[in-house]
């Protein structure tokens, strides 16, 4: 059983019922939780979230409470287990919402209504509730009932059409970028509605279309299309508006080691030329100005790649930075844990889970000077049942036991 967040955080006193599942919903809840809200994720053993079943598991012990894959993204959510297929489970959920300021959900359209947990159902018990839905393509419009996966959501937002090496076609992002992004935007929607509630006393049904959150990333492509009629395609690592050259990822010594280098200004070009020892190829008249470098970017990149490949990536980045060149090592997963930049900032933290194992998750990825978040491990199923159902809703011991026996509290 966990205590609510400390009172010094900005959202202290805000309580959230999070019906969200998978990755979007938990991140939306987590964002509000890091800011101090008491976030209660409602889930069920009758329909265990697939994210709880993915390996590897803490200490190799298979259990829905030990999936290391989801614990970081779910951290700082609490958990109450209710079987929402049972009308008594639905009633308890509605009673919980009477005590909540915000409801989050990312089911397909209509699912919450069928559970009698739709906006109208919950507004009836909590008129000023802020209810945030986060469907794939919004609550209305021709695509409202489209079925997608997180990984493929970026297809209908256009992002997949510009990711890839070149005109030969798109290369997929192999995980659901739209999910954590959507969790953040869903939290923005909740916060905006809380501001509005503070001004007016009214709640509302916030409609976050995951397609529309990702769509903003197509802004540069939109402008080139509406202004010049050009349809963006895959551009590799080049500048989205073609401004910089060189602008790419170049090989370094070792297996799968790379460095990113971006040159946008003449001053940065001169710095790069000096840093690499003013080789003869860099004096080529084609590279004398930005327009020439852009026009000859393939030749330029080939020269640069031939030079970088003998260097160690981090040392080379530091050397280029000493000259003022925008360069950085291309990190892999292991580097995230070990790089001094992330170690200094405490990006990843080891926490002791209430079940006794230690796990590494991300901590407060935004550094706050006054209100430092309380980072709590990904929740065990039902870890907040007693606190919420007895402490908050006032179920007696007998009622609680009976509902447990019937697997309504499961």
């Amino acid at each position, binding site marked *: 059983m966990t205590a609510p967040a400390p009172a010094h*955080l*900005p*959202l*202290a006193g805000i309580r959230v019922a999070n019906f969200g599942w998978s990755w979007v919903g938990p991140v939306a809840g987590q964002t509000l939780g890091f*800011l101090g809200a008491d976030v209660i994720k409602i889930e069920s053993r009758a329909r265990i979230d697939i994210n709880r079943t993915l390996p590897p598991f803490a200490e190799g012990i298979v259990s829905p409470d030990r999936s*290391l894959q989801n*614990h*970081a993204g779910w951290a700082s959510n609490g958990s109450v287990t209710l079987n929402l297929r049972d009308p008594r489970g639905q009633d308890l959920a509605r009673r919980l919402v009477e005590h909540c300021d915000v409801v989050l959900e990312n089911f397909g359209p209509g699912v919450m209504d069928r559970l009698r947990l739709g906006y109208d159902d919950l507004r009836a018990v909590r008129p000023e509730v802020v209810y945030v839905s986060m469907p794939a393509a919004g609550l*209305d419009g021709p695509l409202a009932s489209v079925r997608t*996966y997180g990984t*493929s959501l970026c297809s*209908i*937002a256009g*992002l*997949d059409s510009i990711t*890839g090496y070149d005109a030969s076609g798109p290369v*997929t*992002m*192999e995980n659901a*970028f739209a999910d954590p*992004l959507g969790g953040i*935007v*869903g939290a*923005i929607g909740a916060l*905006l*509605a809380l501001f509005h509630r503070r001004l007016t006393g009214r709640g509302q049904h*916030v409609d976050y*279309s995951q397609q*529309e*959150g990702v*769509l*903003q*990333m197509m802004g*540069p492509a939109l*402008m080139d*299309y509406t*202004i*010049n009629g050009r349809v963006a395609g895959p551009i*590799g*690592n080049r500048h989205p*508006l073609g401004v*910089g050259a060189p602008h790419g*990822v170049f090989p370094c010594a070792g297996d799968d080691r*790379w460095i*990113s280098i*971006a040159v946008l200004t003449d001053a940065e070009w001169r710095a790069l030329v000096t840093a690499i020892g003013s080789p003869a190829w860099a004096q080529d008249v084609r590279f004398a100005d930005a327009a020439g470098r852009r026009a000859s970017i393939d030749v330029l990149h080939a020269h640069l790649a031939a030079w970088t490949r003998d260097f160690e990536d981090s040392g080379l980045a530091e050397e280029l930075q000493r000259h003022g*060149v925008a360069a*950085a090592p291309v990190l892999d*997963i*292991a580097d*995230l844990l070990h790089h001094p*930049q992330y170690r*200094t*900032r405490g990006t*990843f933290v080891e926490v002791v889970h209430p079940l006794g194992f230690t796990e590494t998750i*991300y901590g407060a*990825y*935004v550094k*706050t000077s*006054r209100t430092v978040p309380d980072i709590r491990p990904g929740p065990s199923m039902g870890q907040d049942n007693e606190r919420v159902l007895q402490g908050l809703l006032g179920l007696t011991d007998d009622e609680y036991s009976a509902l447990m026996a019937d697997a309504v509290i499961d």
Partner: protein
Amino acid sequence: MRPRPAAGALAGVTVVELGDAVSAPFCARLLADYGADVIKVERASHGDVARTWGPFPGDAPDPEKSGLFFFLNTGKRSVLLDVASGEGRDALLGLLARADVFVENQRPADMRAWGLDYASLPGALPDLVMTSITPFGQTGPCADWNAYDLNAYHFTATGSRYCGYRDRAPLEHGTFSADFFGGYVAAAWTLGALYGRAAVGGQHLDVSTAEAVAALFTGAQNIGAYAQEGRFERRSGSGMSLAAPARILPCADGFVWMIALETAQWDGLRAAMGNPDWAAPELFRDLFERGRNADFLYEMLEQWTLTLPKQEVMDRCQAHGCPTTAIYTIAELVAHPHLAARGQLVTLDHPVLGPTTVFGAPVRLPDCPGAPAAPAPLLGQHTAEVLG
């Protein structure tokens, strides 16, 4: 300083932005979309660097015709200030004295040199929420590095882990991926800090775009496993390796993201294809069995998808419960009835660029709708109005 007429969830909130390019301007534009009065301070030397990036009509550079600048700065007022001078700094501090939020993405060393870093702000601004958004954040050995979105993005392992072919370079998304993600994160935390300000006071938020992506996206589902097992994965260049189908496939006129993992989805895909004999074997109803036969499976699926337009493939699949979707180009999105029906295309008339279309605000609040409310400002258009 006259405040703007108030409407929207953030009515009455005043934001000062000292932003260039994407991350901070995007963050502040989100606040402007929902009613904040955003005063954009552009440095007198050249204005926001996005004014030089385009895209420009006919590719002819003009600081008042940059499409990127327009997209990221709708609904703001522009004030020209030489913040490196004593007078300019004083004027900026005057704006901050009446502001709720200060959003910036300058290099930390520059902010210190200008006396505008959080520690140098006067103690008389205890209620200010200051949000700094940089590639690497305010602390750590890389804090003062010169870096753009590309450098920040590839500092997150996103390309290494998830995007590109294993024998070729890791890939960026093809946009300002870390900047947009970091801008969203900054907006969320800024709103949270502002909401609780009466109780806890103002403060400084230090956002690293790289750290935000490294934590929330790549770190989230990899770091726990790596810390325990000492092993990690790299990009494969396809969708999913163990199960199938889950991959981008070519169609007659483009591509679809083909997914049919659950048995019902696979049966739906078979029905969408007209139940061909090759897909009939019972053992194919197992997603891992399909994964083991992926080469055969994708070859056969391609023979079908290549005969049809992507929208047709999507419509047939969706009608049978298979979650396959078309990969839309920007041209197809602009023409799509869904975005039109949801008011996601907003045209604003700019005095130099003319009528210009941008996307609507990214989250819909029916009781206090947000939207880009005015075209992006001309360079220094509101200097006299705001400072006068």
